[in-house]
């Protein structure tokens, strides 16, 4: 226990805790809407675009986040536009944009060589996050969380029934764009912690677990955020104790919670069935 508490005296652990918790919260909040809109793979697609952007930033010697955030936002808007024009189906649009960006990134890296920044984002390394990245990540994730809360009711309305919202005079495209921008920002700062390949797990796992456990949109949203934070904290601690890679350990804790939620749901349904059959 004392060993556990002494962990918190390290500045790099403190930074990881603050940034990681905030990112976990943001991605779970947005994830609920994305999963229900059947956009689960958008996080994965955007992270590959993020990798391409980071390769460009590395080659030009620019700060990674300054390049990646705007590029990924543009990609997300493009994906939404392609999706609504419906000439290309959503999943193939995501596949095209993400693999194209990944290919461009691979070529750039092979020509200009890799650096620490790039490999940090490729595989994630929350424990080595710099002070400057910490400040930027905290500011961005606080903005994302605040905007989510301010637009929560509208996000619910366009997630539950987009046609109804549009038909009754709500500016649906505005809120879809907002969702895309917030997701892009979250994915890019999440890459620093989880790595390009694993960041989408933060968006998908906690909402899926929460959907098994709760009945209303609000309880699902709150539960997803809490589960995400708990999984991050326990994942971080386990990875530190066992010297496992942090991102991968967090994914596995999330998977554990998801399996647990399936089991709890099964048991709950079983009890319900029993009580209704004994009523008759």
């Amino acid at each position, binding site marked *: 226990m004392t060993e556990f508490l002494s962990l918190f005296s390290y500045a790099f652990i403190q930074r990881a805790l603050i940034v990681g918790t905030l990112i976990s919260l943001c991605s779970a909040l947005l994830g609920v809407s994305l999963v*229900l809109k059947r956009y689960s793979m958008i996080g994965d697609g955007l992270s590959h675009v993020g990798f391409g952007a980071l390769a460009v930033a590395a080659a030009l010697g620019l700060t990674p986040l300054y390049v990646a955030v705007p590029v990924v936002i543009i990609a997300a808007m493009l994906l939404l536009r392609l999706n609504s024009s419906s000439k290309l189906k959503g999943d193939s649009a995501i596949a095209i944009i993400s693999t194209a960006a990944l290919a461009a990134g691979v070529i750039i890296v092979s020509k200009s060589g890799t650096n620490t920044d790039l490999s940090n984002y490729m595989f994630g390394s929350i424990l080595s996050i710099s002070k400057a990245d910490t400040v930027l990540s905290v500011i961005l994730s606080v903005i994302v969380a605040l905007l989510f*809360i*301010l*637009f*929560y*009711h*509208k996000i*619910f*309305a366009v997630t*539950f*029934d987009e*046609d*109804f*919202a*549009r*038909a*009754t*005079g*709500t500016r649906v495209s505005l809120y879809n764009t907002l969702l895309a921008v917030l997701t892009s920002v979250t994915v890019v700062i999440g890459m620093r912690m989880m790595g390009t390949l694993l960041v989408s797990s933060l968006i998908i796992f906690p909402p899926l677990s929460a*959907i098994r456990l*709760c*009945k*209303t*949109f*609000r*309880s*699902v949203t709150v539960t997803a955020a809490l589960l995400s934070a708990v999984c991050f904290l326990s994942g971080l601690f386990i990875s530190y104790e066992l010297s496992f890679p942090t991102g991968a350990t967090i994914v596995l804790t999330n998977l554990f919670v998801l399996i647990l939620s399936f089991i709890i749901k099964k048991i709950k349904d079983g009890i319900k069935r029993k009580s209704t059959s004994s009523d008759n």
Partner: protein
Amino acid sequence: MSLIKCENLKIGYNDKTVLSDLNFEINENDYLYIIGENGSGKSTLIKSILKLQKPLDGKIEYCPNLKANEIGYLPQQSSIQRDFPAGVEEIVLSGSINRMGFRPFYTAKHRKKARHNMELMRIEDIKNESYQSLSGGQQQRVLLARALTASSKALLLDEPVTGLDPIAASDMYSLIETINKEYRIAVIMVSHDINAAFKYATHILHLSSSGVFFGTKDEYRNSEFHKRFYGGGIYD
């Protein structure tokens, strides 16, 4: 002036015309039934009126007093995901989104209107239940309460009783009649139920591949159109 007026309207999708030369209007307090076989363009017409889809030609005129946030809509039930986690009260309240502007949260006025509509639809006691756990009739009453929360002048209902058992269906009809008569809200309903049309409608719009009829219920009853499709008279 009429609430909604369609002139020489041509509708369809992907440049494929489903219906053309469509002329009809709906006035305050009207109760219009849109009937016709599958594929005759009923839902496409509803979507065009709701501006979810652009007409191919012609125009739909709206009364200047009728803003988009005064039209309520009850979509076909299949358009809502069965497994979506949403509470009854959350859904009914979401009808107020269209008059919130940039205000982030619901006001006491929005909550009062939602509560009133939940009482009217007799879903007040299940307001904390999840939508997916309700019966078909209850689900439709929730969506009707939401449509009512979103509207003050007109309601568009796309097959509101399809899939309901006869008791739930007649309950739904009488609730819609209350909305039309007591709350003085114009109703446009897509339906297959010609008996209900004769019972409740003021006007009937019959769409078919061989032509279109628009007129009052009595005009329709005596029309060649009705005789051709239903043999005439047998449903009186």
